[in-house]
């Protein structure tokens, strides 16, 4: 054992099991030999998380979290701080990249059953991370104190105000003022830079430790633990380091090319990453023509707007019901491990209904995303309502179709 060695590392290992944990989580941690590109998003998410932390700390060195100073300090970062523009655009593009990768990472999970027993906790931690990321993104978007920061935050905070009985007081409590003001801004700043990132780091650690306990999956849904060589290494597995770490390097390279292409040449993403009204300081007397969320919230915003009716006899307004359905669209992801009754993991061996369900889900998500960035009209509202149903149906019907559909036999080996 390494800890018995009379080296510096041995001395440390007897006090802190560094080598043991490196072996356990990196150099001897078995991962499936054959996976596809869908399995790269986890590593890329780690990279983006690090970009956000580092650029975020640097932005914090120049940002002012007051109503009077916020917008000007962002201008200052953009114009006067050396490479300030790079820090800010990396951070704002990083936010979009974070969501982009997160959506693919989770869709991979849905396709290949990465949530199935015994990986339920890995999936749950992941869902919590999505929720925290959405909160983090929202809080961060308010900080530049532009027109869209202000009015989008108003829309979201008024959702809390729509909760029956406690709503208006709750909204005032969250805002710390009777209107959205600098008081709200500075508490959002504290949440954005300290509270939510701390929770996210903790959850990433739980996510990865739980994953290493139960083992990573693969597109075939084959259990690699079944067949091992004489050393105990799964026959269809390979150590995470160096096989997967170096395997991910080209992907990280390609990601950086795309990422910096956006940072250098299209940092606002045509108004989808940073919206045009946000280059104008917040004005509480002037609402922008059209309040649209950034692209990554658009599908959920669409669901929120698709609910145009309430339940009057229960005292539920359409606004509040929209809020409930919007919350449910994220909450439903948490229970997927218990909705899937299939005897196979991967979509490759599942039946036709599972495949149709995944296509419908993906199509409705993209359509909702498109609609969420457009102003409403009757036709769009109708399409959004249909897509909302199609978004929920694959999950709500999952216990039925996964149980009765005909599945294929999963091979023994990868």
């Amino acid at each position: 054992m390494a800890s018995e060695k009379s080296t510096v590392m041995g001395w440390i290992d007897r006090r802190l099991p560094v080598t043991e944990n490196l072996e356990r989580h990196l150099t001897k941690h078995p991962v499936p030999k054959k996976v596809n590109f869908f399995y790269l998003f986890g590593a890329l998410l780690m990279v983006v998380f690090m970009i956000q932390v580092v650029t975020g700390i640097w932005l914090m060195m120049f940002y002012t979290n007051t109503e009077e100073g916020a917008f000007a300090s962002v201008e200052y970062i953009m114009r006067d701080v050396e490479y300030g523009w790079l820090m800010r655009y990396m951070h704002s593009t990083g936010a979009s990249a974070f969501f982009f990768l997160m959506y693919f990472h989770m869709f991979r999970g849905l396709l290949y059953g990465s949530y199935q027993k015994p990986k339920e906790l890995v999936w749950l931690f992941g869902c919590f991370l999505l929720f925290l990321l959405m909160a983090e993104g929202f809080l961060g978007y308010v900080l530049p104190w532009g027109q869209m920061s202000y009015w989008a935050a108003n829309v979201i905070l008024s959702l809390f105000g729509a909760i029956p009985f406690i709503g208006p007081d709750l909204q005032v409590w969250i805002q710390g003022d009777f209107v959205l003001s600098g008081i709200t801004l500075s508490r959002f700043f504290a949440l954005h830079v300290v509270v939510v990132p701390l929770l996210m780091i903790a959850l990433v650690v739980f996510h990865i430790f739980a994953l290493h306990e139960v083992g990573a999956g693969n597109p075939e849904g084959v259990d690699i633990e079944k067949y091992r060589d004489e050393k105990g290494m799964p026959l269809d597995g390979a150590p995470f380091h160096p096989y997967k770490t170096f395997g991910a390097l080209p992907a990280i390279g390609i990601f950086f090319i795309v990422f910096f292409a956006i940072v250098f040449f299209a940092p606002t993403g045509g108004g989808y990453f940073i919206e045009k009204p946000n280059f104008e300081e917040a004005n509480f007397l002037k609402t922008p023509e059209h309040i649209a969320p950034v692209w990554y919230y658009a599908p959920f915003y669409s669901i929120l707007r698709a609910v145009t009716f309430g339940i009057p006899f229960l005292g539920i307004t359409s606004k509040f019901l929209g809020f409930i359905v919007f919350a449910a669209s994220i909450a439903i992801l948490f229970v997927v491990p218990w909705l899937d009754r299939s005897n196979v993991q991967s979509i490759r061996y599942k039946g036709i209904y599972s495949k149709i369900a995944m296509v419908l889900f993906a199509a409705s998500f993209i359509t909702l995303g498109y609609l969420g960035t457009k102003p409403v009209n009757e036709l769009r509202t109708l399409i959004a309502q249909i897509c909302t149903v199609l978004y929920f149906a694959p999950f709500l019907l999952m216990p039925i179709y996964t149980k009765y559909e005909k599945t294929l036999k999963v091979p023994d080996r990868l």
Partner: protein
Amino acid sequence: MFKMSKNKQGKKHIHILDGMSLYIRDKSPFYWGYLNVDGEIHKKSLKTKDKKEAEKLLFDWKNELLYSDSLNDLNEKLDMDVKDKPRVDNTRRKALMITSSLMGAVTVAGFAVPFLSAWNPSEKAKALGASVKFDLSKLEPGAMAVVEWRRTPIFVVHQTSKALENLPKLNDRVTDPVLSEGVARSTNDKFTVLKGVCTHLSCAPKYHPEIEPKAWDEQWLGGFFCPCHGSKFDLAGRVYKGVPAPTNLEVPPHKFEGDTLIIGEPT
């Protein structure tokens, strides 16, 4: 080294230590061991013909007996201890657990109060959001004043009798005539108080009290016109049909005290 003796039964004894000896029995080919441990006599065949080995086994056996005896003693002692001890009082333990959990919860709740209360509007925010007073005596009939309350422009209109007569005529042209609360939308028969924020996209509607044909309306009887997207409201803030704004201009909480209007306090 060993004394050899032959007793009357013809058994050959080899004395090793006090209470410890080997002997041979007539019909057995093996050495037998004799042990006297604390007055207890133990005898058994050692199943060996070799004297040296028999000796060694005898010592081992003795150790084993001594060790197991002491172990038994220890166990017995422990048993006694357990028996002597009073039984765990689970009711008491449960009561202690409940009270300490409760005390813990109270402590957590107590500490939560300042942290959660810090999120309430501060005194400064409360002062800025407090109700505003406005002196109505200087407002001429037909004039409008703009008062700021919670960052919102509040329109205070002194209605003329002509305007009040005209309001019911517009009942068919507005989306929501609010007949039940009174077409003037006010508890006072002279003054109307409205939030000066267009319900379409929060622009500021302009006050046009004059009764004359306008570019946006041939039969204009006075009201508010929003230049941003052309929403029309009458002098009581009721929204016209066929304009972008969906609802009437909001009425903020307000009350009248003689000639003073207090905005921000409900009637």
